[in-house]
């Protein structure tokens, strides 16, 4: 099998010279970065890219919240407002959230967690990044020169016939970026199947891998459907062909079925990786193995599968049949169960642990809190009779922001802080980190909790001007948004600061288990001099660990 010499991993490898890290080895020219096939460099390239798109989308959000302080639409025109929320949605979903943890942290960490030297197809990995940015460039062009005003959901016939904006350019951008996503997912799947170190069986994999594997399966199966759906919509727009046009007997609701068949699983692409990060953080900062390893791993797979079966819950009032509504509502309740299992298991992991409130752990706890609230409101939305009232209102907006921002972005921040020493070889300032986490948590709740209330009161989403009785909650929300902004700006500043001035990081600053911590900080280009051998379950923070994880 493995004809390389098997080496027992050393607790911390001998200190490497700076010139031997991946940041230096392989070249230091721009070309060496733009043509790299090193998964670690590609992860960093993605980090810079998503920061760019995040900034544009965040500015759009800031303008929206500014407009919404007062009921009349007096800051921007209606057309501009519609373009702002479209920019915000499309860029945040496709060009920030979907790549975030997988393409940045996943790319960086997965091969190391598996004891591998790189992903299965490094050149394909670089191609993914280029496809992502080609798509992103088209999207940015569409946004900068005329804008798009259909909302990120592109419902027909507005998008295919009536809108006078750069729909096709934006659709093309998402289409191309989608292939980047597909290739990344494909790469991760094969890497996990084929590049595991000797002894690293499936049930010894860290839970981050289980989450990312499940995410990759969704990426690979769902994204092509989106690509084709957007292509059909664009073709109808270009040639006036009536696939969704009722005047020719087409069905506009068919678009919704095809669109949500992808977009619901897509939201699981946007949460599963976050859950994977949380599993890593909760174990490390409780100094305990995960409670219920098999169930947490199985829950990831269950979420991926069930996630494909619930798309109709976005369409309860669309004209879908009552029977379909019944089926989708029931399955939506069922898909909540594996998520609940994860939350319970994380909680029990902390029992009798030794808990540190370092910044990554603060983010993990923030995730558990905010994701629980977001997930609970999912139960509200799954109730058919309730959804009729709140669908297409701010209640839904609050729900998905709790999950995507309160959940995924928080986990991303947690993971970034956790692996930052490994990625850069530097420590970020811990006190500032804790402060930023707190600010973010307060700002987030102030921004989005009032939106649940104003949604139930009846404020529809995508409204530029609104009825006066909704104002008090909108003011609270906008105030929260400015605090949230500070919470995100702080890490940007101190992370950049730390690259040059931060304390040098040891190889394993958190004393965490996991193969990625067996490498120097930052690692050399090929990660491991010798492929390590694994003979234990992950999160082995105490001797009785493995026994307990398997037998209870």
């Amino acid at each position, binding site marked *: 099998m493995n004809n390389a010499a098997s080496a027992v991993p050393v607790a911390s490898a001998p200190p490497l010279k700076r010139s031997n890290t991946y940041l230096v080895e392989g070249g230091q020219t721009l070309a060496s970065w733009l043509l790299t096939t090193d998964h670690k460099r590609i992860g960093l390239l993605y980090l810079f890219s998503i920061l760019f798109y995040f900034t544009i989308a965040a500015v759009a959000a800031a303008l929206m919240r500014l407009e919404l302080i007062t009921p009349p639409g007096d800051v921007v025109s209606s057309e501009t407002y519609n373009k702002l929320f479209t920019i915000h949605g499309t860029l945040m979903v496709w060009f920030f959230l979907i790549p975030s943890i997988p393409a940045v942290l996943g790319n960086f960490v997965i091969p190391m967690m598996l004891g591998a*030297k790189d992903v299965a197809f490094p050149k394909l990995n670089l191609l993914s990044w280029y496809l992502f940015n080609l798509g992103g460039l088209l999207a940015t062009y569409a946004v900068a020169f005329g804008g798009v005003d259909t909302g990120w959901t592109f419902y027909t016939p507005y998008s295919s016939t009536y809108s006078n904006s750069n729909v096709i350019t934006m659709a093309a951008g998402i289409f191309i970026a989608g292939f980047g996503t597909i290739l990344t997912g*494909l790469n991760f799947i*094969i890497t996990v199947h084929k*590049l595991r170190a000797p002894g690293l069986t499936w049930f010894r994999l860290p839970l981050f891998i289980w989450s990312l594997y499940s995410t990759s399966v969704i990426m690979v199966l769902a994204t*092509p459907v989106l690509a084709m*759906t957007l292509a*059909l919509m664009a073709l109808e727009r270009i*040639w006036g*062909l009536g696939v969704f046009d009722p005047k020719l007997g087409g069905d506009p609701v068919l678009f919704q079925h095809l669109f949500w068949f992808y977009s619901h699983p897509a939201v699981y692409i946007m949460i599963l990786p976050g859950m994977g990060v949380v599993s890593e953080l909760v174990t490390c900062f409780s100094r305990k193995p995960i409670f219920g390893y098999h169930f947490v791993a199985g829950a990831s797979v269950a979420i991926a599968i069930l996630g494909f079966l619930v798309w109709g819950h976005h369409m309860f009032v669309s004209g879908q049949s009552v029977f379909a509504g019944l089926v989708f509502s029931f399955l939506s309740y069922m898909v909540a169960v594996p998520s609940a299992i994860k939350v319970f298991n994380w909680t029990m992991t902390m029992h009798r642990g030794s808990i540190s409130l370092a910044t990554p752990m603060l983010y993990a706890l923030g995730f558990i809190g905010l994701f629980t609230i977001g997930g609970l409101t999912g139960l509200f939305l799954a109730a058919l009779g309730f959804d009729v009232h709140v669908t297409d209102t701010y209640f839904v907006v609050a729900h998905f922001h709790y999950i995507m921002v309160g959940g995924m972005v928080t986990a991303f921040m947690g993971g970034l802080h956790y692996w930052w020493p490994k990625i850069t070889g530097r420590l970020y300032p811990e006190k500032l980190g804790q402060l930023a986490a707190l600010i973010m948590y307060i700002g987030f709740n102030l921004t989005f909790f009032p939106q649940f209330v104003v949604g139930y009161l009846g404020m529809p989403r995508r409204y530029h001007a609104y009825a006066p009785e909704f104002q008090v909650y909108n003011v609270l929300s906008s105030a929260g948004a400015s605090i949230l902004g500070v919470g995100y700006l702080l890490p940007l500043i101190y992370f950049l600061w730390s690259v040059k001035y931060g304390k040098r990081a040891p190889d394993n600053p958190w004393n965490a288990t996991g193969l990625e911590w067996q490498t120097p900080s930052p690692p050399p280009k090929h990660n491991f001099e010798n492929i390590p051998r694994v003979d234990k379950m992950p999160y082995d923070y105490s001797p009785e660990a493995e026994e307990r994880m398997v037998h209870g």
Partner: protein
Amino acid sequence: MAEARSDLAEQFVEMPQQREASVLGMWTFLSTEILFFGAMFMAYITYRTIYPGAFAEASKHTIVLYGTLNTAILLTSSLTMVLAVHAAQENRSNWVVRHLLFTILLAVAFLVIKGLEYHQDLSEHLWPGPHFKPGLPPQAQIFWFLYWSMTGLHALHVTVGIGLLSVMTWMARRGRFSALYYNPLDVAALYWHFVDVVWIFLYPLLYLINRSS
């Protein structure tokens, strides 16, 4: 011939691992292609269920001779592809090249016939839009939209396949394949068979609705 160590990419530890990874990778890619075509198949199923009469009538205007010929051509090309892989397994590289060239020839023939067919379809105004052939129900345009987009996407995949197989032929001529290493050929063959299978579904759905009447 001894296993060429330079064929082993650095992220892999041994040759079987690399081979398994690339085959699994291609199967995964093909599953994405199934979902990609699948969305259009879903649209087809939806509209054919709602408008069976219009679809049957619209389908009568497809040129079943060309469709049938193309089916036979693609099936044969899958055979020659299998023979190419088999020849590699038996270390007969000149037959690898020959079978690959047959496959490419058949693929080009497919595209030529498709081109002739498209030309004739267009001259009959079977392009959906304001100038669509009169006398057909409006939903026939939905059928024809699906015809053009599904066969067009398929033809695109055939074209990509020709490029892929050309590269394989070039590699085979330079002696890159042997019984111990024919990985790229394996993976290219998988892709080619997929292209064939998609056509097997397209043919009856587009050409054979209600031909018996």
